[in-house]
């Protein structure tokens, strides 16, 4: 039995949109609607989907940046070795939770405070949590800069973010994220703003660090190729729901849900002579599965830990 680092059950994030000051109509936008997944220690889950499908909203709700409107999120507690609900954490426990969860942002140009030096930026988590004395902290900063490949550290510490390139900044973000040795890191498209040439080195760095530090990732991306490179499992999100979730190879080789098929068909292949399978949007297979398992369960297992949403998506894709 694998230990999970995080378990998400029926997570919901609804927004109320009012029609204006004088209007009484209130629409509800279901940005994230009833999604469930879990991530075991040391594994990473890719969250894939088009823009606006709720990937980032999920991430922000997990990190307690925005309050969720429903559902449970449970996080592994080091001391009790049990899963602990992250709602209503007391101060001390909240601090412990904060130590173990971190987020890497998409835009390396905006995710570092432009008025702080690299040293201050990386030191901040240690200062907030008051870990070690000053010398320990500085040593830790030098150490982590070495780990993310920014050497010599003394060359980077007194610099400001705008003096670094995009790839170097993303390395600084990763260093800042990992200096607390978190168990779980949410990556919100960390490579999408980088040059293709830098991308692979950043992804390799993240994979190596995951192995060394036993970090689990929730890796948000709209690029299936990136997800395949980074993740053990992939969840496909559409319209606020997870429509299909499976092991990476299983999902890519044997997609069931029409949306997943569309997504896979849309990957550009850099070889014009390669004849790849193009999937049609066809609801028959999905209908058959829904008919077989009934619509009571939001997700049905079709074997191989491959789950399909039974939610009706006809006409939406």
């Amino acid at each position, binding site marked *: 039995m694998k230990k999970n680092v995080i378990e998400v059950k029926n997570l919901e994030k609804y927004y109320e949109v009012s029609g204006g000051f004088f209007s009484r109509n209130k629409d509800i936008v279901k940005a994230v609607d009833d999604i469930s997944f879990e991530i075991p220690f040391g594994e990473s889950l890719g969250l894939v989907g088009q823009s606006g499908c709720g990937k980032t909203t999920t991430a*922000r709700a997990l*990190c*307690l*940046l925005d309050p969720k409107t429903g559902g449970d999120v449970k996080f592994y507690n080091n001391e009790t070795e049990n899963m602990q609900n992250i709602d209503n954490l007391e101060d001390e426990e*909240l*601090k412990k939770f*904060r*130590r173990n*969860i*971190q*987020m890497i*942002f*998409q*835009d390396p140009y*905006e*995710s*570092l*405070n*432009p*008025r*702080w*030096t690299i040293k201050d930026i990386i030191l*901040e*988590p240690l200062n*907030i*949590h008051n870990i070690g004395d000053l010398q320990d902290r500085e040593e830790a900063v030098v150490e982590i800069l070495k780990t993310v490949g920014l050497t010599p550290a*003394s*060359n980077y*510490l*007194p*610099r*400001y973010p705008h*003096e670094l390139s995009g790839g170097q900044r993303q390395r600084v*973000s990763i260093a*800042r994220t990992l200096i*607390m040795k978190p168990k779980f890191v949410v990556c919100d498209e960390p490579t999408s703003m980088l040059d293709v040439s830098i991308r692979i080195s950043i992804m390799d760095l993240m994979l190596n660090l995951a192995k060394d530090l036993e970090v689990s990732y929730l890796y948000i991306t709209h690029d299936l190729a990136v997800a395949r490179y980074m993740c053990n499992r992939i969840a496909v999100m559409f319209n606020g729901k997870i429509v299909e979730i499976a092991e990476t190879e299983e999902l890519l080789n044997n997609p069931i849900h029409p949306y997943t098929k569309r997504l896979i068909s849309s990957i550009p292949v850099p070889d014009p002579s390669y004849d790849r399978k193009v999937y049609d949007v066809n609801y028959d297979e999905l209908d058959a599965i829904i008919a077989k398992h009934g619509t009571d369960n939001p997700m049905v297992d079709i074997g191989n830990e491959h789950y399909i949403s039974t939610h009706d998506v006809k006409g939406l894709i």
Partner: protein
Amino acid sequence: MNENIEQDLQKQLRKEAIRRNWNLFRQSKLGMIGLYIVIFFLFLALLQPFLFITGIWNKGVYDPVVGYEAIKDTLLVVECPKEYPTEKYESMKDCPGPGELNVKRLYLAPGVEVGDYYETFIQPAPPSSRHLLGTDSLGRDVFSQIMEGSQVAFVLGLLSATLGVGISTILGTIAAFFGGRVDAYLMRQSDLILMLPSLPLLFIISAFAELKVWHLAIVLGVLGGLGGSVITIKSQALQVKVKPFVDSARITGGSRWRIMFSHVLPNVAPLALLFMVFSVTGAIASESVLSFLGLLNIDMSWGIMIYLSQTDGFIFSGLEFWWLILPAGLAVTLLAGGFYLVGRGLDDVFNPRLRKR
């Protein structure tokens, strides 16, 4: 060893940053003109104490408030005719001519006859080598008054601007961060202060309280700090608040105050500095207006100089006594304008969208 390299690099980078910003500022011609003006007046303000300390200027003669020196002159006493034109004078304006004195003005000195020479003091005296800008109607050195006035202007302007910007930066950040009722209260408050006409308000305040330079600086600072600048700073803070680095600090567990003071404030600071420079202009102008209206209890300032020349009746005498009005008026205009121009130049440095590429 490593530490030394790091510190050296830090110094070097800091120097580079300063040089880069200075180069940006230097490209703005308006900003440079403003800077020269401000430096000129700063030089004047600092020159006066220097002259007194080194003894080049005697306090009894050159003190801007209690100094006194009259230029002695000997005038021919004449009697102005009742009808014009005469042989000597074409119209009433020509009598008494240069070097002459109307006998009618000597009713307090009996025994002086027409045709005598009368020794008198010229007050206000025109510019001379001893008094570069002449003296005022009480025999005080105008140039020294200008210097004193620039000290007052700098103290008042910088003090009120610092106070005002400090208040508005903190309140604006708080409004952006706490939102809700705090925000609504602060915004309505600044609407109210924006709406109040500030000069009449200052009249009322000066009617109830004695206004000295310090008091005026505090009043102007508080009024400016609670007014429109809170709204602008708040909008900037709102922009910074949603940046990912703030989210990043929140995830790590940074408290609200920590995020406010160490993340948002430093990023709002350039705009606040800009506001500060602009509000110096307003403070200097307000001081002269209030002094001119005689509402301040200040010994000497540019406004007071204009006020005195007005109450002594010289302001409507054309340019005959120009040294009583022009230097003070020009000083107010130039220094206020100079600070404004410096602000324009800083705008180019701090506002990347305005930068020429």
